[in-house]
């Protein structure tokens, strides 16, 4: 009884001081209008609930894998140094984990655009046998019996926990992940300046890369071929697997070039470990690429300058934002629950 009272008191204190009703979404004026209407009207507590769900490993079949296992906040919500995603029971997926940020400006999700809705997207990793391998019955069972979730769902939605509401909260948290404080962004508003090398890198970028990776989001978020030959072990045909259209074969969603410092390896199958390798792939000297329209005819010096520019798109404020990290305060709550 005493533990239950302590739990209630703690929750009350935390929520009283920590949250306001409306989540403040910060994105700069040079960003276009978001595709998601929710971004301007997020509820703080719902975002927090989404964060707790995002970091909770008990939803996976082996209770060891959470969304954050592959989407680490310290790596721009990608899985650094892992070519392909890892999942429950040590399973290995088919694709490199995409970074998560600026999702409010996107309309389809995953490398092949399998998800047309961010809320629905979370169902895929939850139930995929190479990711969290959960069943929805298990997920619902945990939501309905966990005291913290029961309490939080009541406060956020005024209802019992349910899968649709959990997906809504996960969407809210993911929409809150906005990366817009890189050196490039600061240069645009006049509080940072570029070096000569970065300025030249920007020129090289504008001439050769910006059609697929246009600023300020640095992606069209459409689908395109990256010119890579198919990996015969994975046999991933990309967008074709969703549409069945031959013209979509080997087309993958164009990734943003923000935060590349934190998201290696690169490409949909993680085959390149560093940016120089990526640029070499697009180089005319690469025999595989000779016939490709994707060839970028730039010198080695230009590559260095281009990489210097790409580094200006890294956003350390986003990476180390405490509100993106594991919600440590839940540890206190869980300890009290266990004692109870």
């Amino acid at each position, binding site marked *: 009884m005493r533990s239950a009272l302590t739990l209630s008191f703690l929750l009350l204190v935390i929520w009283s001081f920590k949250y306001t009703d409306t989540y403040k979404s910060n994105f700069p004026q040079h960003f276009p209008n978001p595709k998601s209407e929710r971004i301007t009207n997020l509820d703080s507590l719902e975002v927090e609930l989404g964060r707790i769900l995002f970091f909770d490993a008990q939803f996976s079949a082996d209770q060891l894998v959470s969304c954050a296992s592959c989407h680490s906040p310290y790596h721009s919500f990608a899985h650094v140094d892992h070519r392909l995603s890892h999942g429950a029971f040590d399973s290995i997926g088919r694709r490199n984990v995409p970074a998560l940020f600026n999702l409010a400006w996107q309309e389809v999700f995953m490398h092949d655009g*399998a*998800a*047309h*809705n*961010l*809320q*629905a*997207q979370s*169902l*895929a990793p*939850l*139930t*995929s046998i190479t990711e969290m391998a959960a069943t*929805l*019955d298990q997920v*619902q069972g945990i939501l309905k019996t966990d005291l913290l979730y029961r309490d939080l769902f009541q406060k956020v939605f005024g209802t019992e926990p*349910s*899968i*649709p*509401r959990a*997906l*809504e909260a996960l969407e809210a948290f993911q929409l809150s992940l906005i990366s817009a404080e890189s050196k490039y962004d600061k240069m645009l508003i006049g509080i940072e300046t570029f070096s000569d090398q970065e300025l030249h890198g920007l020129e090289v970028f504008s001439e050769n890369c910006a059609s697929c990776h246009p600023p300020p989001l640095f992606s069209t978020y459409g689908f395109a071929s990256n010119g890579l030959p198919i990996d015969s072990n994975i046999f991933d045909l990309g967008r074709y697997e*969703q*549409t*069945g259209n031959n013209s979509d074969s080997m087309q993958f969603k164009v990734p943003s070039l923000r935060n590349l410092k934190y998201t290696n390896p690169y490409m949909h199958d993680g085959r390149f470990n560093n940016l120089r390798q990526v640029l070499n792939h697009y180089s005319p000297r690469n025999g595989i690429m000779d016939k490709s329209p994707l060839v970028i005819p730039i010198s080695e010096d230009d590559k260095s300058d281009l990489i210097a520019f790409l580094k200006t798109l890294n956003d350390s404020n986003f990476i180390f934002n405490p509100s993106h990290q594991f919600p440590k305060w839940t540890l206190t709550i869980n300890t009290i629950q266990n004692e109870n």
Partner: protein
Amino acid sequence: MFHFALKVLAFILISTRLIGQEIDYQLRASFHDQTIDTVHGNPFGESIIFVNELKFYIYTTHNGQTNPDCALLLSLKNPKQTMSTVRPFQIFFGVDSLLNYKGIHEGALDPINNMYWTWQTGYIHCKLEGYILNHTTKQNFEYHIGGFPLKDKRPLWIGQKSDCKSLELNFDLHPAIEWALENKVFNIMSPGKISDEMVRVLEKGIKII
């Protein structure tokens, strides 16, 4: 005073219709004119058809409007459902394209009902599973029809009602099975051209009484 009473009466009548009335929806799954027999199957020429699973959505619209509360999941296991419905209403097969586009919903559309694709977003409009027994051979069939790409297709109209407290929905599977055998299509698990063809055949078998 008389006019006032008339206005109140009219308001009550209109409100009652707009608020909606509980209507019982009863599924009668059949094969030709025979009710589906899940234990002994149904005769089909020299073969017998066994249906293990039939589960599908219908939704209603009033003045062209619908919402997640207007969706109903009927199945062989749960053939009778009640839903508040604003009259007059039209009934459609599957999940409304707009609801499908908007993502996840509660109630009948809760993914816990296993009618949502997780690998390719979108609701499954209809699940039909079973097998065909012909002497010593057994042919399984499994059709999961629906998904997001159907959003641009026309709605699958079943019928309309202006006033009723219950309605029976007859789902004759004969056209679908016949089409499947003719075309030798026994598995459909994703949206696409074949799925679209199947859904049109399924639609032919649905009638409201």
